[in-house]
């Protein structure tokens, strides 16, 4: 047994990890320059939503992509974040920063409570349960008088400030906030996927029984993934409430949101670091465009369109768009070696 054979791959592993991190920092820095070039309000709006859903889908990807527990009910966590933040601000004067943190923790606890029964379900049954639970949540909020019931909650207008996270005219600060949120979710994913937990999740996704035989407590792994995923989803929800400054049940807990969190990851490549962002970059502007042409969400036609798109991608390209990159990089490597 030679030491070189053992240590050389470790150093190259560390080097490739560092390279990934540097590339990410460059990408974040490049995105941060966009507002210098874009002043149009509509475009800025679309960019903010794109980054928000990149962050949300990145959070969804932790549970759905890496751990393989395909949730189609993340609108529930989004809603918990949005409602917690709105209620704390409007009724208690607690600024959005505190509201988002509270919403995130509450959401993680709810995910654990729901995971306890749901993680005993397998595959499609789990996904169906998440849809049903999120719809029940939506129904409850509709009838929740304290939370404004069907009328929702209107945020009071205040002068622009980072402290209250309210910006009425200039939306650029929101852009930087969601960029930060996206960067944090990316970095958290980056840190965890190459740790014990990340490997446990992937093993659980591929073969839970084999994982268990290698010392992985499958149930705990799923619970951990769910809690982290729900935490960041709720922070996104809290931000969204501050951003639109008015929420009602349909505008934050509609099934549409659950889809919009899952689809970018599926399109871009589940269980990959850049998949959700690439998917969001394609889907969200498209969703916004179809929405402004078709008018509102009422018809649901937009959902049909990107549902079809995702179906085509997952049939022809199961690893998503990032799968194409991965494969061509491998080919290039093979060529370089030959």
């Amino acid at each position, binding site marked *: *047994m030679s030491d070189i054979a053992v240590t050389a791959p470790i150093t190259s592993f560390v080097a490739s990890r560092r390279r990934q991190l540097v590339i990410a920092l460059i990408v974040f820095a490049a995105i941060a320059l966009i507002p210098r070039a874009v002043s149009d309000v509509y475009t800025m709006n679309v960019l903010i939503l794109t980054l928000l859903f990149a962050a949300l889908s990145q959070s969804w990807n932790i549970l759905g992509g890496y751990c393989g527990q395909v949730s189609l009910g993340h609108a529930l966590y989004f809603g918990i974040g949005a409602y917690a933040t709105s209620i704390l601000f409007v009724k208690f004067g607690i600024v959005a920063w505190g509201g988002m943190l509270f919403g995130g923790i509450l959401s993680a606890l709810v995910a654990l409570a729901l995971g306890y029964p749901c993680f005993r379900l397998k595959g499609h049954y789990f996904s169906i349960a998440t849809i049903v639970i999120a719809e029940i949540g939506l129904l409850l909020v509709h009838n929740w008088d304290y939370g404004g019931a069907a009328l929702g909650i209107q945020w009071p207008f205040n002068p622009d400030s980072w402290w209250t996270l309210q910006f009425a005219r200039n939306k650029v600060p929101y852009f930087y906030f969601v960029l930060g949120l996206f960067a944090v979710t990316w970095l958290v994913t980056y840190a965890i996927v190459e740790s*014990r937990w990340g490997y446990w999740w992937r093993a659980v996704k591929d073969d839970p029984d084999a994982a*268990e035989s290698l*010392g992985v407590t499958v149930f705990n792994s799923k619970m951990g993934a769910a809690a982290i995923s729900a935490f960041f989803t709720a922070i996104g929800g809290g931000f969204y409430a501050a951003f639109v400054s008015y929420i009602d049940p349909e505008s934050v807990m509609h099934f549409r949101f659950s889809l919009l969190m899952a689809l970018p990851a599926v399109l871009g490549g589940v269980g990959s670091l850049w998949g959700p962002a690439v998917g969001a970059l394609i889907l969200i502007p498209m969703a916004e465009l179809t929405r402004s042409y078709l008018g509102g969400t009422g018809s649901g036609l937009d959902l049909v369109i990107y549902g079809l798109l995702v179906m085509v991608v997952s049939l022809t390209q199961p690893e998503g768009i990032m799968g194409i990159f991965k494969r061509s990089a491998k080919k290039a490597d093979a060529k370089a070696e030959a």
Partner: protein
Amino acid sequence: MSSDPIVICEKVSRRFGGLVANDSIDMTVRRGEILGLIGPNGAGKSTLFNLIAGSFPPSSGKIMFDGQDITGLPAAKLCALGIARTYQVPRSFDSMSVIENVTVGAFVRYPRMLQAREKAMAVLDYVGLASKADAAGSELTPPQKRRLEVARALATEPKLLLLDEVLTGLTPAEARAGVELIRKIRETGVTIVMVEHVMEVVMPLVDRAVVLHLGKVLAEGAPTAVVRDEKVIAAYLGDRHRAA
């Protein structure tokens, strides 16, 4: 080799509906030995592995490991205690690379990434898969997948290694290499129980053999004695040609 037992099965039974896959099995595995677990198709060998490794609990009976009652403990706990197993049908993590597969196992003893990865690399080197470290689990040939299963199990640094038909379906040369590997593993002090159909391959390798038939222990003893046992020959007739 001492006669100090590492596994004791006492009247272990497992039923699947009306089917009794393991029927009141009494079996002892001695520390440091290679024990062959043989028997025709459907004899209950894999079921017994599943019970010892904790994939599911026995319907009745008691299993001791290393002086501790482990009946009904979950598989992950048993892995931490020192039981590792391979599957009859290899179950690699196909979205993970070979070294990542093995690292999953190494995390039981080495919670930190770099140490776990180093351990995994050392084990891959040991089983002769180092050159495939970066390949996807799904890219391996069936014999390589078997080696990966063994590597993954070894990365958990087990005291007891349960090998379910790791030599089946290999070419004679591959099987010989496999036998060498198993000997090498035993020399490091790991106790091995191996299920195998093909008696010719296992008999020279094992210290003792236990024969299962229809869920019961049919015979037990030195390999040379077991293959001459009348009951064993009777049980194997008809199945032997299929298996060989």
